[in-house]
């Protein structure tokens, strides 16, 4: 492949947004979990919940901070690298993404300030309200992002003016687009599952080490229990998401399915190596009829293959094909772990299942992998379009951007994001390793919504001192 400025811009966008999405995916779920912990703590008065709350609040602070910083980069990248896209669709995408930042700042940042500073200054009910508002803020942020991205997947509610500008004519159609309302729950559940597995994994980790038994037990129980309920739900919503792809983006669907020829009835390809040049699959394992069942709920439907789509409108096949299978694989793994784990939790024998605990401990990245591969499927599968069916990615990029400029920026982001990632994950690791603080002091917060690292470094210091003493 020839390395062009366009290719580098795509790489840069993919890299920066993938890095960014890791953190919101985590904080959306974590905000809800914090609500749960605070609610349980208020209702039962059991201190375990309170200690867990303080622990995960600090983790939340770091992830939130990195999410904000990397999100700022996203707010600029639409203009720097995709000037034609922003010129043409800015009247639609601008307000949608704007509302995302606005909710983030108005709800998350301000009420997060209350969470960090306010424990000793506001009434418990108000504190709980602040928790709820932060969770609402993260959820609303996700909502606007999904509305915006769904508009790019299935553009509705606009006219195209003679100067190429997309003018919104029906905001209700845009905001209440059926595509957005399937993909938003899909993303929300993905975020919850990501967090659930991080929480369960932390619980398993401490149980394996024989530390913080009561807290670890709660983490394991709540994480796995939530996942046990949500994974089946997610598989269902995921299927609905697949339905919209099937109906509205046949090229993407064919790429995901690895289907080259029109088939009636269609075979479901379980695994294969799709040969993009030769337009056929190698080493294919498939199940006859199942392709039609999944696509159209019938045994005889005709399903479209990639060869029926003009070659200039086809997406790359390898990435959507494998990313989708990785996502589904992660889903099935989560289903297995959460059900088996919950069964053992109910049986009260989970502490002794060391092999299972090890598996759960090692599963902490599974939600992140599923979320990222799901996004790869959706976004790479949308190619060669940026706005599906209307605006090609080649037409969306900044036309005069030169290769050296993008190379330079990509390298810079590479360095900065590596530093952020190393320190961010290191601090989260230190916090989780230290575990919940026993004998909780009313915390003197020096934290600040967008300055989370101060919190964590403080925690790191305490951990070190604890280690020395």
């Amino acid at each position: 492949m020839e390395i062009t400025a366009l290719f580098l811009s795509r790489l840069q966008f993919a890299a920066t947004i993938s890095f960014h999405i890791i953190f919101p995916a985590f904080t959306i779920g974590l905000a809800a979990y914090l609500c749960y912990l605070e609610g349980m703590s208020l209702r039962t008065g059991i201190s375990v919940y309170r200690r867990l709350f303080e622990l995960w609040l600090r983790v939340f602070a770091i992830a939130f901070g990195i999410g904000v910083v990397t999100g700022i980069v996203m707010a600029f990248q639409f203009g720097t690298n995709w000037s034609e896209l922003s010129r043409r669709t800015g009247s639609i995408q601008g307000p949608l993404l704007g509302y995302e930042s606005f909710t983030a700042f108005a709800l998350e940042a301000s009420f997060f300030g209350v969470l960090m500073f306010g424990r000793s200054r506001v009434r418990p009910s108000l504190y709980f309200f602040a928790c709820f508002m932060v969770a609402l803020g993260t959820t609303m942020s996700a909502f606007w992002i999904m509305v915006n991205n769904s508009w790019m997947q299935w553009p509705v509610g606009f006219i195209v003016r003679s100067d190429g500008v997309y003018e919104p004519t029906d905001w209700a159609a845009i905001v209440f687009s059926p595509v957005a309302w399937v993909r938003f729950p899909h993303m929300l559940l993905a975020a919850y599952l990501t967090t659930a597995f991080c929480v369960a994994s932390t619980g398993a980790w401490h149980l394996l080490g024989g530390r913080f038994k009561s807290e670890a037990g709660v983490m394991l129980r709540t994480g796995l229990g939530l996942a046990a309920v949500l994974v089946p739900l997610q598989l269902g919503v995921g299927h609905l998401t697949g339905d919209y792809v099937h109906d509205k983006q046949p090229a993407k669907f064919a790429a995901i399915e690895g289907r080259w020829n029109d088939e009636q009835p269609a075979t479901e390809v379980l695994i294969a190596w799709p040969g993009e040049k030769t337009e056929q699959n190698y080493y294919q394992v498939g199940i006859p009829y199942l392709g039609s069942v999944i696509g159209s709920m019938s045994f005889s439907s005709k399903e479209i293959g990639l060869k029926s789509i003009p070659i200039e409108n086809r997406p790359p096949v390898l990435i959507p094909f494998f990313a989708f299978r990785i996502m589904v694989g992660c889903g099935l793994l989560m289903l297995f772990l959460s059900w088996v784990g919950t069964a053992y939790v109910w049986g009260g024998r989970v502490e002794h299942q060391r092999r299972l605990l090890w598996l759960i401990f090692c599963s902490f990245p599974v939600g992140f992998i599923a979320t990222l591969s799901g996004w790869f499927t959706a976004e790479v599968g949308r190619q060669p379009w940026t706005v599906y069916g209307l605006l090609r990615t080649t037409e969306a990029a900044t036309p005069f951007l030169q290769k050296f400029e993008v190379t330079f920026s990509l390298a810079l982001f590479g360095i900065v994001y590596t530093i952020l990632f190393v320190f961010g994950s290191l601090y989260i690791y230190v916090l989780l390793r230290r575990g919940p603080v026993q004998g909780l002091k009313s915390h003197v917060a020096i934290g600040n919504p967008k300055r989370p690292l101060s919190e964590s470094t403080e925690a790191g210091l305490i951990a070190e001192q604890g280690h020395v003493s």
Partner: protein
Amino acid sequence: MMEFWVAALALTVFLYVTLDGFDLGVGMLFAFDRKVRSRNHMISAIAPVWDGNETWLVLTATILFGAFPLIYSILLSAFYLPLILMLVALIFRGVAFEFRSRAGALAGVWDFAFAAGSFLAAFIQGATIGALVEGLKVVDRRYAGDAFVWLSPFAALCGLGLCVGYMLLGASWLTYKTQDDVQALAFRTLPWLLGAVLVFLAAAFFSSIAIDLDLLNRWTDRPVIFIFPVIGAIACVALSVAVCWRLPLLPFLASVAIFGAAFGTLAVSFYPYAIPPAVTLKEAVAPESTLTFMFWGAGIFVLPITIVYTLLVYFIFKGKVNPEQEHY
């Protein structure tokens, strides 16, 4: 509706320039005092507010994207390299802010990153404004100039000018928030900074005559513009008096007024252009349906809430900082 968003944009830009201006300025002054204690004192004077100040940059970008997509797409793509550099500088500066006091042997590295990030961000902001004042070449709604207009002599001069201007804001903020030796240092530095700002303004004025800047024609068309230099001159006098008498809050207010005068001069010189000499605000504005959609949520709720929240933070944090208690 367009008028509302022009006003909102002017407000967010001005708030960003003055608010982040003073904390970037403190970041630069930081380089001139090597004592750890003074540095901590300076840091504590901006610690609770600097990140909130940067919020206004993001709000500016989002309002541009939604309400003036054409400006957003032209400016951000025209200034590709400087904007990326600025973002990285701001991120580095933020990270340095957190790490400098806990890095032990590496503290010097983070201190350097903090000051250097502040300089770079300020220089780039000034240089891009300078390049914008010179005018951007736009053909068929796309930027048609080269990637380094922000390094033209005039733009670079503006870059240095804004560094000095931000330092003026920073030093006057320090006279308000700090005491003892840091405050004394700030008072001692202010006359020099004010002098440097005036030298810069004179240099910018004469070089804009020399390069026959199109914007200067607005000055002859609209004599009303001269009200701003007058306000600026009064503010300079007020600042000098405040420094002579060692009055604490007045220097900051006077510096903000100087920035307000400069901002007003530029705004009136630009109008009706958003990107002189190519794009007017009217050409760049988003369709009415977009502006209305933004107005009913962002316009009447989010902007006021953010302003109230900002005021609240400054109110909670009023008065002198205690460097012993709050140092980072």
